[in-house]
């Protein structure tokens, strides 16, 4: 909201400049985001009167004008504006002056004709965006005065952001009231004495929806001067408030709204049939609105209708059928109180954000209708003339709001400082809620414009903010010395993250909502859809973090990053048994060279086993690695024969595999290996328990076996471990060979065993026996032949 300092000072005039007022308001919760000059520097810009216009002899679009601008002699000015003609008044910039954009105006010859200055448009003077030719000034504007003077002089515009609970501050009056409390000064409220009716005409008013319209005031005014124009001062006030002048009647209703915060509407009386009805719209009813659209209404929309049709959307916008226009002489003024519940959300739904709707949604003064009606009538009398009729008032009986108790002790307890009693009384009185003394404090009845005062704490804030939040000291709260639990079995997630970081992964954070198409491709499923996604490709909640990781891979590949190693932790959202499961997972993706380009390691692409090593490292942290089971299983995102499902003692932990080559091709991304694991089981570790380390020397024995390709490493290891017994301290595969000397459907696997007894030194003979046992088992169980 834009507010003119000069306008504000008509209500209250503290001895402080605009910046100081802005600071004070900001620190009281009325945030002033900027203070700017209302007018650009209008150096040597005067009011001029065009006395004569002759076509330029050598240019079609130029005219030679004789202009009187107060110097006593006529200035010859060449002008190209289409709307220039003899008799109009317009701003003239004299030679030596500068336009707001900095360009200097000099005496010059234009196509051979002398030009002593320039007639200006509002756009050239940086006043508005209008490109409608010269800024035509009203006929009574005094010639020879500076434009700045006739526009009401220098002024500052404060841009104010009002929080949604403070609808009462959406007016000059409202801001003035805040300043009244801050500077402890009285307000000067403009005259709103009732204007006596001159005619008897009235329209019957029926409020059929009292829950939406608690008060309605209406008045007919006849015989307006249809030739009247909005005076310059009023146009300028509107301009300074960011409102475009349209028509004197509309401008006056806008002016009153800006000044008092009460929206009004004016109808052309001749287009109202029968009388006024305030009701809910009927489903399917339509209305053509002032801004051109014709929305279909439903029974949630409050309307103003006559006895035949809808005239306008209550509190939001009038219809074009009954709009005041050029030539209108009889009008009907409406000034009502619509409840926030009846207005809120409608303008948004219909796509109509209006100043009136904005104010009604936040709540306007319950008692402000008559004051606004009289203020508008008075301005109309001055500007357009006319014969006012009596004011019709329909009002729901008002329940006196119950007082809110403010306890002195509670005030001090909550603020942490004591505010003197007379300051409390002064502050609340200035805000329009004079408190009544009570036994332990005060009783306060909130005024009709404060919908945010409901409980004691609201009053604590009022006192606190006017007194000054920054007078509150800083104290440390000692509090209870309880200590949060620290279960040692539970791993800190930071350790998992750090492990991946040490293995060259970069953490990423991707959106929780993803592209449904990509998601379907990677999971074969449909995710939970948003009702109002911000974009079509962010429309579903992720079923897997892979969707975001693949997207990130694509993004970085498009930026020439060949080596991408990323991981993310976060929730995935899965439908399970007709319920939404929000599950914490950790997921990773690697592609490109396994190591950054370097001299000491071969440059080779990262593969399944690289990623599996990373996953095993994560499981090792919680001591769960030995219990990990890796089983081949198909997944829509993964290469059908390079895909594994991971299990931990019967619970499914997650997936690991190479991205399906077809998916990679469609997405135009390189081959990548991915994993996703549930976090909860990964974080469940155990308390370490110390065991004695054998003091006897270990023996290393190797065994090379040739087995069918179908025999898995897990089978070999399991059989070897089972047959070797307790002396097998460690068992590893250290080589796999395929090629010359080995049948093409078979492979040679080299096992390395560390044998050690915990109670005695293992003899060579005993070690040989163990190895023979292992070899025998592998031969019988897995069809292994032993290589020498």
């Amino acid at each position: 909201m834009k507010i003119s300092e000069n306008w504000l000072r008509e209500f209250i005039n503290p001895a402080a400049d605009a910046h100081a007022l802005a600071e004070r308001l900001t620190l009281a919760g009325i945030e002033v985001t900027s203070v700017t000059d209302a007018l650009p520097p209008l150096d040597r810009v005067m009011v001029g009167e065009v006395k004569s216009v002759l076509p330029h002899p050598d240019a079609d679009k130029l005219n030679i004008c004789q202009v009187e601008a107060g110097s006593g002699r006529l200035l010859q000015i060449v002008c190209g504006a289409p709307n220039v003609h003899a008799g109009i008044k317009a701003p003239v910039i004299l030679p030596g002056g500068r336009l707001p954009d900095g360009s200097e105006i000099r005496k010059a010859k234009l196509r051979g004709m002398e030009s002593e200055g320039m007639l200006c448009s509002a756009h050239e003077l940086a006043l508005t965006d209008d490109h409608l030719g010269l800024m035509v000034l009203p006929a009574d504007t005094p010639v020879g005065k500076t434009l700045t003077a006739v526009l009401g002089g220098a002024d500052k515009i404060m841009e104010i952001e009002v929080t949604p609970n403070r609808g009462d501050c959406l007016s000059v009056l409202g801001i003035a009231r805040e300043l009244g409390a801050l500077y402890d000064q009285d307000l000067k409220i403009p005259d709103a004495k009732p204007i006596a009716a001159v005619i008897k005409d009235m329209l019957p008013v029926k409020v059929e929806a009292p829950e939406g319209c608690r008060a309605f005031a209406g008045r007919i005014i006849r015989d307006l001067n249809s030739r009247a124009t909005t005076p310059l001062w009023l146009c300028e006030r509107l301009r300074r408030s960011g409102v475009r002048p349209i028509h004197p009647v509309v401008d006056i209703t806008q002016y009153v709204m800006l000044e008092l915060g009460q929206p009004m509407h004016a109808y052309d009386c001749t287009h109202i049939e029968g009388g006024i009805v305030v009701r809910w719209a009927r489903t399917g009813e339509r209305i053509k609105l002032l801004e051109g659209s014709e929305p279909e209404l439903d029974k949630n929309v409050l309307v103003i209708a006559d006895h035949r049709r809808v005239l306008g959307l209550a509190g939001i916008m009038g219809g074009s059928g009954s709009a005041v226009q050029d030539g209108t002489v009889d009008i009907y003024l409406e000034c009502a109180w619509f409840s926030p519940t009846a207005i809120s959300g409608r303008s948004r739904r219909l796509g109509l954000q209006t100043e009136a709707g904005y104010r009604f949604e936040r709540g306007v003064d319950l008692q402000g209708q008559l004051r606004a009606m009289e203020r508008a009538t008075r301005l109309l009398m001055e500007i357009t003339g006319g014969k006012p009729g009596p004011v019709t008032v329909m009002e729901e009986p008002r329940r006196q709001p119950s007082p809110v108790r403010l306890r002195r002790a509670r005030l001090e307890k909550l603020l942490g400082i004591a505010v003197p009693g007379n300051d409390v009384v002064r502050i609340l009185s200035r805000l329009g809620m004079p408190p009544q003394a009570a036994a332990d404090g005060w009783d306060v009845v909130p005024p009709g414009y404060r919908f945010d005062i409901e409980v004691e704490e609201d009053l604590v804030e009022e006192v606190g903010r006017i007194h000054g939040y920054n007078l509150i000291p800083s104290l440390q709260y000692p509090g209870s010395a309880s200590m949060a639990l620290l279960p040692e079995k539970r791993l800190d997630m930071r350790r998992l993250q750090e492990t991946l970081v040490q293995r060259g992964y970069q953490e990423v954070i991707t959106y929780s909502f993803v592209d449904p198409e990509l998601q379907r491709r990677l999971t074969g499923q449909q995710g939970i859809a948003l009702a109002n996604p911000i974009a079509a490709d962010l429309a579903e909640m992720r079923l897997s973090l892979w969707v975001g990781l693949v997207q990130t891979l694509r993004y970085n590949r498009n930026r020439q990053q060949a080596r991408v190693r990323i991981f993310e932790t976060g929730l995935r959202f899965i439908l399970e048994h007709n319920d939404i499961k929000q599950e914490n997972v950790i997921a990773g993706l690697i592609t490109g060279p396994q190591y950054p380009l370097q001299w000491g390691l071969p440059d080779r692409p990262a593969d399944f086993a690289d990623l599996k090593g990373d996953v095993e490292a994560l499981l090792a942290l919680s001591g769960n690695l030995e219990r990990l089971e890796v089983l081949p299983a198909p997944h829509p995102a993964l290469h059908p024969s390079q895909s594994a499902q991971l299990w931990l003692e019967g619970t499914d932990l997650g997936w690991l595999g190479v991205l399906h080559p077809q998916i990679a091709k469609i997405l135009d991304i390189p081959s990548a290996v991915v994993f996703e694991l549930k976090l909860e089981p990964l974080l469940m570790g155990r308390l370490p328990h110390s065991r004695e380390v054998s003091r006897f020397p270990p023996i290393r024995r190797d065994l090379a076996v040739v087995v069918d390709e179908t025999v898995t490493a897990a089978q070999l290891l399991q059989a070897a471990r089972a047959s070797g017994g307790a002396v097998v301290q460690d068992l590893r595969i250290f080589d796999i060979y395929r090629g010359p000397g080995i049948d093409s459907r078979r492979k040679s696997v080299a096992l390395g065993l560390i044998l050690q007894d915990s109670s005695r030194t293992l003899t060579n003979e005993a070690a040989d026996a163990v190895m023979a046992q292992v070899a025998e088992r592998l031969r019988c169980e897995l069809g292994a032949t032993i290589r020498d």
Partner: protein
Amino acid sequence: MQHLDDLIREAHRRIDTSTTLVALNDVRVHYLGRKGVLTEQLKSLGALPAAERAGAGQYINDAKRLVNEALDRRKQVLEQTELDAKLTAQALDITLPGRGHEPGGLHPVTRLLARVQALFERMGFRMETGPEIEDEFHNFDALNFKLDHPARAAMDTFYLRDWPLLLRTHTSPVQIRAMLAYGAPIRVIAPGRTFRHDSDVTHTPMFHQVEGLLVDEGVSMAHLRGTLSLFLQHFFERDDLQLRFRPSYFPFVEPGAEVDIRCIFCDGGGCRICKQGGWLEVLGCGLVHPNVLRACKINPERYTGWAFGLGVERLGMLRYGISDMRMNFENDIRFLQQFR
């Protein structure tokens, strides 16, 4: 014995001029070997008269000892030289870069969250997390958002299509869950993802918040100010950091405030980042609204409390200079690797 003296002199000369261990060994064999010159001398003692024999024997043995010692000394020198040469030949180019992985890094938001969390944990706050798909009760109703309040719509909430649920607009629902679970007194912080229907340079539809909550007996605005001052001073590592409280409105606190810090870039003189105002907005806070306490079965007459909420990406802007919020979620690896 003139002859022997010459012999010894000659032996020393040959020892000192030996430059390899092999050559030195030849010298040893020549003098002290089984058929060495000095060994032969000893053997020839028998030819001497008995009276001279002992003296001559002594003399030859001394000579042998001296030669032997000289040989040992020379051997040590040559061995050291040889070792030195060998080690010199093993020189590495120690400027070659090391082998293996280069570490990746954590996301800046994770860094910031960890820092905020660590500071509050030092003050006895426990961390709580909660669901991102929330219901209206936890996200709005229990937080004193009235049904008809414009703030409810103005929050620009994401709703689910087929469920009466929404994406949490703040992490405040975690406070509700924590208060319902543990009651008062309580101190928690709730970090996490939040969602609002907004997208431009300063807004992303997803962002991160940390909310803090302290409920106990006798808690006032002064305690809120004290804790936040301490936290912000520690977070920015500026013990002269100035704060100011501006009244503001959040349905779940009353009185409510926004907290500004003196601009850390210009010390309040005015710059582009503080838009010449000299102050930077960092968080919103206030005393927990009695309706919220009541919704969480806590008696507001006995207990009072404060809550605050801060935007993590905003801290990233102030601390690391990430001015375009969208950078946080584009995940350009070159951008992310600056934060490690």
